[in-house]
């Protein structure tokens, strides 16, 4: 009985900590403006929509990888998938939860777009270094 209580409490608290942790990763990028070229390529100007994430990730995969982004993107990707699961299961019975999940997914997409901007700048720098005599 005690083990069941501990298991349930641990899982609930883990979910809360995980959501807050992912939000803390995303929070910094939410205030960052998108470079013009990213706005043109992704069609995202000020705020992203919930379904933009996969499209931006496809664009990200076309750019050379920055080692600094890798871990963050994995965590946020896992968070996005968790939100997708919540949206298609529990949120069917609670419309407010669906709206919340969509807002969070939009923030994930915006975070991916900010990362795309950084990767484009990184690729430019790489190219510039190669062009130097």
């Amino acid at each position: 009985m005690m083990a069941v209580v501990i298991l349930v409490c641990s899982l609930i608290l883990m979910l809360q900590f995980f959501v807050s942790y992912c939000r803390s990763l995303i929070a910094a990028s939410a205030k960052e403006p998108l470079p013009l070229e990213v706005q043109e390529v992704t069609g995202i100007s000020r705020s992203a929509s919930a379904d933009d994430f996969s499209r931006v990730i496809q664009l990200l995969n076309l750019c050379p990888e920055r080692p600094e982004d890798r871990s963050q993107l994995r965590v946020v990707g896992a968070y996005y998938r968790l939100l997708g699961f919540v949206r298609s299961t529990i949120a069917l019975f609670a419309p407010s939860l669906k709206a919340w999940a969509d807002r969070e997914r939009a923030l994930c997409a915006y975070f991916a777009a900010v990362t795309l901007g950084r990767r484009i700048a990184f690729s430019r720098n790489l190219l510039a270094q190669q062009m130097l005599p």
Partner: protein
Amino acid sequence: MPGPLQYFIWFSCTLLEVAVLVCAYRRQAIRQYFLLNLYISCEVIASVVRFEILHHYGLSSLNYAYFYYYSDALLTILLFLALSSLYSQVFGELNAGRYVQFGALFLLSATALFSFAVVQQSSAKLLSHFVFELSQNLYFVGLVLTYILWAAILKLRETRTRLIQIVLSLGIYFSLYAANYALRNLYPSMESVFQSLNPLIGCFLPFAWAYAFWRIPDDARLEPSRLAVIR
């Protein structure tokens, strides 16, 4: 002997722990987070000694089993003290450091007494089982304390991003361990499966701390109210 995958996870975890120390040193955060870094240093030392014992005596030896569980209990106590140092940082402006230390020692003693009482009723190998029970209970107490600390961060509007990420990652780590211990108690026949998850869970904390020290400047700030799941 462990397989290649288990060795890989073990070495990766130890490397991540070394990375935490290097990042903290490079970002001049050793003193500010002294107990956290002390805990990580002890993890590295324990990892090296465990490897030596494993190499000499084998995985199924009593020497390895004893050292593993005893060092795990000591490391859990150290992590518990590291958590109390985070409390001191959050409550620093309220000059509540002494109360926090007193509370941490009281909780530690109470958990030890509770574990002893549980073990005394049903165990012949008292000390070994006490050590295992103490670790298990401290993980759950640590989880509850981390949640209270998180609530205090939200209430006191603590804005230091690095501190917030360290606390949140500690919460994830404690909850994963507590859930794993609970699953081991619920399904004893699958103990080996759940036990093999321990090193994987152990990698998360050094990974998250290394990230927090390396990527987040000391002066970075964020609004904690944006992070709360329940408002």
